[in-house]
């Protein structure tokens, strides 16, 4: 089974749940940016959470099914078309060999996901099928799709553990794509290096997502944030926002030169010389991935216990989702 890529879209890549365990040599975890949306798409077609999907950014691809296939589109609201006819998102779509799947206008968000029964079949590299484009590894030949590519799909027809999929997606489980979000963070790392006014600015301001946002990180505009002046330690660089190059937690917020905070995401650079002041909690990482440029974002400080409770809540939601798959 396979799809032929007629048009590649802006940045269509193969992703799965990621490649943990190699951050110590600079290889990021990768994986779907909006993990829950990708999982729901997988659930709808009867896959496990581990199958690889296609992540589409803004402008989606135009694909032709080389064989019959079952697909579902999750993620940001977008016009889904089969042979030019509008079809529903968040539901199972049966394609016949020769059918063309394409996408129209988006109505919010940034990324949507194409899951296909059986999963996208590319080689597993270091435990994952996710694309790491900077390292030219994983995914489809280590890169985003191009016109003319033939993307293989694992064939599960007649397999004993083949499943139909989630019969119906409860509206309460469907992610939303608002223009204003509150993101929970745990303060720490180098937050002591901000002045009191700087910390107040970080937590009280409205931050607007700029178009400078990709799988590595997202940049926000807003007021300047004040760092404490000091004599820099040996090896740290000259600006008060510099540190001796250190590891960067995924989700950490850095404010180079006190301007335009950057939040690192799934393809994070693993380290560098900018002080970080807080980290987005694991349960809220998907919210960032769902943001479109212009989204007004507020950072709300929570405790570790609150972060763990939010994590548990998300795990509960996922287990309801997967428990309903038939």
């Amino acid at each position: 089974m396979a799809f032929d890529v007629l048009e590649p879209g802006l940045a269509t890549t193969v992703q799965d749940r990621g490649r943990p365990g190699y951050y110590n040599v600079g290889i990021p975890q990768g994986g779907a940016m909006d993990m829950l949306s990708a999982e729901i798409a997988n659930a709808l077609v009867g896959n496990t959470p581990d199958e690889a999907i296609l992540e589409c950014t803004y402008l989606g691809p135009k694909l032709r099914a080389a064989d019959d296939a079952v697909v579902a589109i999750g993620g940001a609201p977008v016009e889904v078309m089969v042979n030019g006819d509008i079809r529903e998102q968040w539901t199972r779509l049966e394609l016949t060999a020769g059918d063309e799947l394409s996408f129209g206008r988006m109505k919010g968000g940034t990324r949507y996901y194409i899951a296909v029964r059986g999963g996208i079949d590319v080689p597993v590299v270091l435990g994952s099928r996710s694309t790491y484009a900077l390292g030219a590894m994983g995914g489809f030949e280590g890169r985003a799709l191009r016109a003319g590519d033939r993307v293989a799909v694992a064939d599960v027809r007649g397999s004993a553990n083949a499943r139909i999929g989630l019969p119906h997606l409860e509206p309460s489980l469907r992610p939303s794509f608002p223009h204003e979000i509150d993101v929970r963070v745990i303060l720490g790392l180098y937050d002591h290096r901000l002045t009191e006014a700087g910390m107040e600015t970080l937590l009280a301001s409205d931050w607007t997502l700029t178009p400078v946002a990709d799988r590595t990180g997202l940049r926000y505009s807003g007021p300047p944030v004040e760092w404490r002046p000091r004599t820099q330690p040996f090896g740290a660089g000259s600006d008060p926002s510099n540190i001796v190059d250190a590891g960067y937690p995924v989700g950490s917020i850095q404010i180079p030169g006190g301007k335009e905070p950057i939040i690192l995401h799934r393809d994070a650079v693993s380290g560098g010389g900018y002080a970080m002041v807080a980290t987005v909690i694991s349960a809220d990482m998907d919210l960032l991935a769902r943001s479109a440029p212009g989204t007004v974002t507020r950072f709300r400080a929570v405790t570790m216990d609150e972060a763990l409770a939010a994590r548990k809540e998300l795990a509960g939601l996922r287990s309801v989702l997967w428990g309903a798959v038939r």
Partner: protein
Amino acid sequence: MSMIDDAARGARYTWGGDEFLFIEIAEAMSLAANFTSTAMAARLTADDLDGIIDICPSNASLLIRFDPDRIAPQDIEARMRAIEVEVRNLSHPTRETRVVEVPVWYDDPYTRETGARFRSGHQRPDGGDLDFAAEENHLGSAAEFIRRHHGSLWLVSMVGFVAGLPFMFQIVPQEQQLEVPKYLTPRTDTPALTVGHGGCFACIYSVRGAGGYQMFGIAAAPIFDPAQSLPDFTQFMVFFRPGDIVKFRPVDESEYRRIQEQVNDGTYRYRQASVTFDLNRALADPHGYNTEIMEYFDGV
């Protein structure tokens, strides 16, 4: 303040969200702080605890990713504090590692051409990165800077930023460290295998891409090989590990081309030898220790 005093203060423990523990060993870079980071990382690795996802030693700090569904944050913190005490109480800190020879074509046309494209806004718009580096270090010429660059050994103090990129710290007294500010505005392009320098750190860019370090030359052989086609990469696609000791060897164009042919044939191997790194000796007599390791390596 000596390097040992700075590193001897207790580390600072702080959370990076609900999945990361960040341990700042020292604010300033030093051999001692880096040794503590890698030694703590090695002990945690040996523990093989359930729920530890990534153990990332870096220059003067240590980042640990854990799965809080499998190990409680306070448990991993308690374990690391105990490990820190063990490492600080080591009377004779040593590490089994290797010396690796890295052939470099200094002042090569690839990085020179790239540098020329990003001259506007550079600290020295009318010269090259090497001229700027020589001036910053009060050295007479680019040639003298190059000689100082390969004249001593470097310790791989961190691997990361992008896949397989080594940060390296010169094993010399602090006042003799080569220090060069980064580009004022980062470049959007850097040739793969560029030998760069920012602050007190040398690096080798493992892949082509953006970068802010000054560019001095180009390494002749890959350090990241996702296809694992070369013999040094059969075990793993990344060559460097924190704790490796690097000896740069200057090569001219003809040798650079010969090495490139061996790379293309799939036969190139890095020259390397096992060695025991002794922190106290490296701190007490950096020059003598450098000479000893270089002479040992030349005899292997």
